[in-house]
């Protein structure tokens, strides 16, 4: 577990440079500062904030995580100015490895059976080929869930992200009825993994700690986006299925490839789910053509197995 974390951090750090082109760096992230250790003789080149390359001794560098204070419910309503976040999901690359889902569950400290990112086996008609379809929240531009919420506990921000404030939610579940994509889950009982999140301050941008009697859903990881990082599902996917980016900049990235959004749509025939409903989702799909992997059916209940494992190791 520890190793995996380190690896993930390193990978994120490597991708940081690539990302900086596409996404704003709003402070924080992994920084290196000078420490008072003795020289080791090994020199490392680093880039200063004013754009100069300087050489410093390795021993003077110390990795620290700068912890952004989680956004309060009021701050979470603001959104990142000038942004319009979009996600592209390349169905031709999905092999149903569920790394996206596992990392999502882990970083959002999701308990029980609540799964934010589901991967469905899709088969449109009798004679059509099956494929895997990861399904996060669509973060619609005309979100039916926001429309029906009686207390504005679920809201759309100026950067297009739809969030839930579980300190305001009254648990009427009307948003679940209204959502045509069924992306929302409800905390039917006291969340099970609360101990992982004890003492953590709640933020609608991270979605934890969960609260009994409230609705929750995929949040596009705005806490990561704020730091100029990609959402957890994007970085976790070994096949680069997920691309995340800003529609205004016309750029999306899956961590290793950064591409023009409009070009990707044009070349691969991108589309959105249930366009006919007029909800205008922010998630785009690329059709499952020229697939990287042949479709292999697996038992769909793996997500539950994953949850059960977590329960048993607790």
């Amino acid at each position, binding site marked *: 577990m520890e190793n995996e974390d380190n690896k993930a951090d390193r990978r994120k750090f490597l991708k940081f440079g690539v990302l900086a082109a596409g996404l704003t760096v709003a402070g924080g992230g992994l920084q290196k500062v000078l420490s008072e250790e003795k020289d080791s003789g090994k020199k490392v080149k680093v880039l200063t904030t004013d754009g100069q390359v300087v050489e410093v001794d390795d021993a003077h560098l110390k990795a620290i995580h700068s912890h952004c204070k989680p956004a309060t419910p009021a701050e979470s309503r603001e959104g990142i100015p000038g942004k319009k976040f979009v996600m592209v999901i390349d169905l031709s690359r999905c092999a149903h490895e569920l790394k996206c889902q596992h990392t999502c569950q882990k970083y959002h400290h999701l308990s029980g*059976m609540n799964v934010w990112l589901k991967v469905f086996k899709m088969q449109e008609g009798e004679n059509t080929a099956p494929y895997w379809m990861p399904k996060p929240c669509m973060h619609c531009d005309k979100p039916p869930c926001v429309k*029906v919420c009686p207390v504005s*506990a679920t809201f759309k921000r100026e950067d297009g992200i739809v969030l839930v404030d579980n300190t305001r939610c009254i648990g009427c579940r009307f948003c679940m009825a209204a959502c*045509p994509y069924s992306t*929302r889950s*409800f*905390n*039917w009982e006291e969340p099970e993994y609360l101990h992982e999140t004890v003492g953590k301050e709640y933020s609608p941008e991270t979605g934890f700690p969960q609260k009994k009697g409230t609705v929750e859903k995929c949040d596009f990881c705005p806490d990561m986006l704020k730091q100029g990082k990609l959402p957890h599902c994007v970085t976790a996917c070994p096949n680069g299925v997920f691309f995340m980016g800003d529609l205004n900049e016309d750029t999306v990235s899956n961590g290793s490839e950064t591409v023009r959004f409009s070009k990707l749509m044009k070349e691969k025939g991108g589309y959105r789910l249930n366009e006919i409903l007029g909800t205008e989702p922010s998630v785009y799909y690329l059709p499952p053509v020229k697939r990287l992997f042949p479709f292999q059916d697996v038992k*769909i209940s793996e997500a539950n197995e994953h949850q059960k494992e977590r329960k048993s190791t607790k």
Partner: protein
Amino acid sequence: MENKEKKELTEKEAIDLLHELNEDMLPKKFGIIGNAWTTLLFIIFITGIYCYTNQIRNGLSITGMRDFVFWGIYISNFVFFVAISLVGSLITAVLYLLKVEWRAPLSRISEVIAVSAIVFAGLIIIVDMGRPDRMVNMALHGRIQSPIIWDVMVVSTYMTLSFLLLYFPLLPGIAFCRDRLKGIPKWQHKMYQILSLGWKYSPEQYAIVRKAITILSVIIIPVALCIHTVTSWLFASTYRPGWDSTNFGAYFVSGAFLVGSGGVVAGMYILRKFNPSYKKYLTDMHFDKMGKLLALLALVYAYFSINEYLIPAYKMKGEEASHLNELFTGYYAPMFWSVQFFGMILPIIVLLFNKGRKPLPMFIMAIFVIVGAWFKRYLIVIPSMSFLPVQEIPEEWKHYSPTFQEWAITGGSLAGALLLITLFVRFFPIISVWEVAEEKGVSHDIIYEHLHEGNEK
């Protein structure tokens, strides 16, 4: 027959009639059956409250609802309560404004049903909330765009209007209980004293009450149409097959009038059964008229049901088709067809015949209509949630079946509403003396002068 005698009442006859009415309508102590019934309702109600405290502690996980079927019998029961409460406006307001005279002895029965049903509609919807402790958020952060806020507004408005429409015509009755009921506990006398608001049977007071009733009757009709239309919009404003219907408002309202009238008929029959003196006022003629009304309402409901089911069934559009197949031939088919047959078709057939509109067959049809209506609302609410991609969820979440505690809470709410009605019958005159006297042709002057008198003066 009563209608014919009308204008021929002499003053003496009129006064005697009034006295007789007054005596008959004085609330009486319950017998064994009455007490047993009240106790039973009370036990069911308390059990419901106990289970609700469990729900407060453990969350909605004590119910059979999960992410897949996230609205259950609490919501269908809420729709049922709202539906049955509409009858208050039909009998007290619509028939009153149309000057239908036979409605006089039925108006209070229907208004009591309306008030207790709408009170428990409000309570059961709170029971369904995940965070009832945050109810105040609806006032602090209420969004006028949400149909839930519309529902809160119209239901509370209707509750207030219905209460007033029950209370104002009752004032002379309460005053009479205050003055004439002897040998009652002190608190009961005190209650009458407070509730009668110093009523002194003056013509001016009657004039005010009459005016108030007319104004309330006019206002309550649009509000009544609103409550059930808005309730239907809670469903119709979503994209789900079975709910996504432009027919829903009219469909709900027509069904509501039907079940409410069924409730009044059942009430009439039970009142007659346990107090034979009511037979003089709730006559076979009243059953006959209500039977015709019930048949008409069932026909209107059949019309909207055909619109609701047959046209989508003609197209059999994707998701809509799987929903309808579940209802017509699938999992819900036995319930669906019994509800259509017993709750709508059979009453239409039986009530078309003179013999079918006698009290006993009417009572049986009314019970069919009421029970059918409850399960009909189950069929409207639950199956619409069972068609979306059923993947990645545990097996036990795919089918909804209410848990025992959920049934207990729902049963508790139904028992609570019946308990309210029962207690009302125990402590207040269930038939409005002065309105019935008017119906029977007693002039206003005689009513003003002699209403406060009993036989035993």
